[in-house]
């Protein structure tokens, strides 16, 4: 629009005000489009709910051991049994929500807070836990272990 008005009068004179206007418009466009483009860029976690996480490499997980994986805001315990089977269970103790751990010496899942014990299927077998641990699904793709919610 500036062109339209500028045209009939000062055609060849450098118009300082117009340069400022152009610069302002450019800055304006930048300050509007930068947030929009940043907004549209896919975020790290691409969806609202975590449905699946990578839990590391199978070859790095020893037999007869377990480790805690962060699944959204909740811990999940991934266990490789002595026979090499993979199991994933919620690591939140059903008693008072402590994080459970794998005890090699007992061959059990154990909660340090009140000595709650679960078998490797997550069933509460001793101590105060009232319910079994919720199971998660384990999928192995190549050497990579993935844990996902049971559907």
């Amino acid at each position, binding site marked *: 629009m*500036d062109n339209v*008005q500028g045209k009939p*009068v000062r055609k060849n004179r450098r118009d300082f*005000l*117009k340069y*400022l*206007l152009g610069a*302002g*418009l450019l*800055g*304006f466009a*930048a*300050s509007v489009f930068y947030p929009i483009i940043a907004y549209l860029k896919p975020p790290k976690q691409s969806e609202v709910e975590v449905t699946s996480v990578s839990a590391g490499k199978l070859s790095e997980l020893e037999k007869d051991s377990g480790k805690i994986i*962060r699944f*959204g*805001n909740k*811990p999940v315990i991934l266990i490789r049994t002595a026979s090499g089977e993979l199991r994933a269970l919620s690591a939140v103790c059903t008693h*008072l*929500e*402590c*994080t459970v751990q794998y005890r090699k010496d007992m061959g059990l899942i154990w909660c*340090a*807070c*009140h*000595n709650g014990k679960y078998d490797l299927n997550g069933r*509460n077998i*001793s*101590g*105060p*836990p*009232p*319910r079994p641990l919720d199971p998660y699904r384990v999928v192995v793709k190549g050497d990579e272990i993935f844990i996902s919610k049971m559907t």
Partner: protein
Amino acid sequence: MNKIILTILFFVISVALAARDKEHSVVDQCYVCHESLGGTESTLFKQDIHFKKGISCSACHGGDSKSDDMDKAMSKDAGYKGVPKGNEITQACIRCHANSEMMKKYGSKIPTNQFELLKASVHGRLAINGAERIVQCITCHNAHGIVEVDNPASPVYPTNVPKTCAKCHDDPVYMRSYNPALPVDQLQKYRTSVHGMRNAKGDPKPAECASCHGSHDILPVKDTKSKVYLTNIPSICSKCHSNAGYMKQYKIPTDQYEKYSRSVHGIALFQKHDIGAPACNSCHGNHAATPPGITSISEVCGTCHALNAELFSSSPHKKAFDKKKLPECETCHSNHDIITASNKLLGVSTDAVCSKCHKPDDPSKGYMVAKDMRLMIDSLETSEKNDSILIQEAEQKGMEIGEAKFRLRDAHQATLEARTMVHSFNEAKFNEVVDKGLKVTAAVKIEAADAIHEFYFRRIGLGISVAIISFLALVLYLYIKRIEKRKENV
């Protein structure tokens, strides 16, 4: 000759009997004859309530009780059945006992649904021979000589019930054929219980088998409708134990059920339907029901609260408690109305329990240790709470704080572990756990504060864009001014 004499005798007796039992229109020829012949059946039957009501042998055995001719009376034509076998026995009983009209005729007010209940009960299943139910009426009530339940001679009179049930239930060979996993020591255990000992002394009031398990309607323990299913136990015990009038002579409190219902265990069982929660029998035992002894309380509680019990048993308190005859867990946590333990229990304030024994002038360190421990755990809990407030604030401001939130779980875990560790009554061990938690809360606090700080940092971005927009607005304003000036000139 003998026969003639016998016949005459028979006749005379019959007439005499007929004269005596005027209300009976007809003489019961079965009884007349069988009594004269002797034998336990007829002797017992004389005491029988059915005999007293004028019911003839033929009511169950068939035949013609009016005929004095043995061949005629006990002929198939007269419907004579002899000794009923298997389910026939029960059929014979329920001809009257399932018929309220008939029962009314005899002036009886007892219920008529026993057979229905029995059929649905665990005893109503087929026996191993596949031909009859496991239990017939006479298994418990006997055949001849049945008396009212409140008659001490009855096999189902409270003091006789344990023996009656034990006829089968303490026979391992017999029980094996139905339920090999079922124990057979119930009677033995029962005799060691307070209930059982009083029962043995002839007191009909204490609980016997039927008080808890029911009589005709006994269901397997795992059946949710069973009177002794886990969630039903407190109410079955309270039937007597909450009845102040009934319990009066025993001089024990009657508020256990009420207390239990509002306890952490009662809430878990009744409201959260947690079938792992203890009911009355978990601590008192069932057949051997007796309050746990003072020195064994920690073991009883320790069946679930293992770590606490273990720590306590190896702590200096164990010895001291035993010496002073203080009941272990109960001294601090109470028994039936245990509420969720909080930090309040610890320390030396008025509502804390440590100061009950540990006074400020205590020669041992107890008073100081209790005070320190409380201080430590309070500071851990406060910093955990503050952290979660910070995290919530950061979240409400739209900051990504998942990592810190995840780590705060460790602090919560440390709080719980510390609460358990209290039972070691060892300050060093306790502080180790608390310190672990405090380290986490400190780190989380920094992270959360950083996130909130980041929120305010957004204002710098705002400043930049506001500056740009304002600049553009200013230039536009000048431009408009110029256009309007030019117009005026034109």
